[in-house]
């Protein structure tokens, strides 16, 4: 368990949030031109690394807003939080 500083509501317990997986995955501009493997790669394949990862989170039991979070998956240390549409800070 860890605390997340929601950019809208402030510091809250992790149980109020839902993880949305890896962040900054862009939807292909022409999906119809992709092969099945490329499309499946976009839809399903995520890094899930051990170390610093950029993730999307949703404050599902609070303001219900999405935001981005930089988290070290090995120790749950949070290195940065920024709103959707903002550029990620340097880590």
């Amino acid at each position: 368990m860890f605390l997340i500083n929601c950019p809208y509501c402030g510091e809250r317990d992790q149980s109020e949030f839902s993880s949305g997986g890896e962040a900054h995955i862009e939807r292909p501009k022409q999906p119809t031109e992709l092969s099945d493997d490329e499309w499946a790669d976009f839809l399903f394949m995520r890094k899930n690394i051990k170390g610093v990862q950029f993730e999307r989170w949703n404050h599902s039991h609070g303001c219900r807003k999405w935001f981005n979070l930089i988290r070290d998956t090995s120790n749950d240390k949070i290195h940065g939080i920024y709103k959707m549409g903002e550029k990620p800070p340097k880590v």
Partner: protein
Amino acid sequence: MLDIKLPEFEKKVYPDLELSLLEPSYKINLRGKNRDFFTKAGKLLSIMLPIESNTSANIKNINALWLSPDEWLIYGKDIDKNLETNLNNEISKLKYGSVTNVSDQWVIINFKGKNIFEVLSKGSPFNFNNFKGKKNVVVQTLLNHVDVILHHQEINDLNLFVRKSFSEHLWLWINDSSRFI
């Protein structure tokens, strides 16, 4: 046909804690973010929607709770019935934002007394240390795994909003917890 029957909870008194149902109450969910939305809402409600997070504003019998940067809950007793129509005409129909009557979706339970936060702390992950010393503050959190909105309107006087379908279960849990403070 929708079942709009409200629960019937009898007032309960525990040491330094009083629980009662604050129904029927009028509740409207407002969503919008442009300048026209704020102007129209302010004019019709005679209240400026709070833009600071986790705060509320009130005037006479109307309370406006901040829920997110573009969402507010307006509630109160004895609100003019034309208010919803006016909000719909001036905001929803002109596409400045959305107006939804949620009176039948949320149930308000009023807490009074010094032991409010002793009970809430038993089932909520929220840290009430700063919250309990301030009035007109709002928080959306979990209580016994149920989504709730807490409006601390006066010190040791709090309104808890819970979805109607969860209200009976939560009411029983609150009463059970209150017996062991």
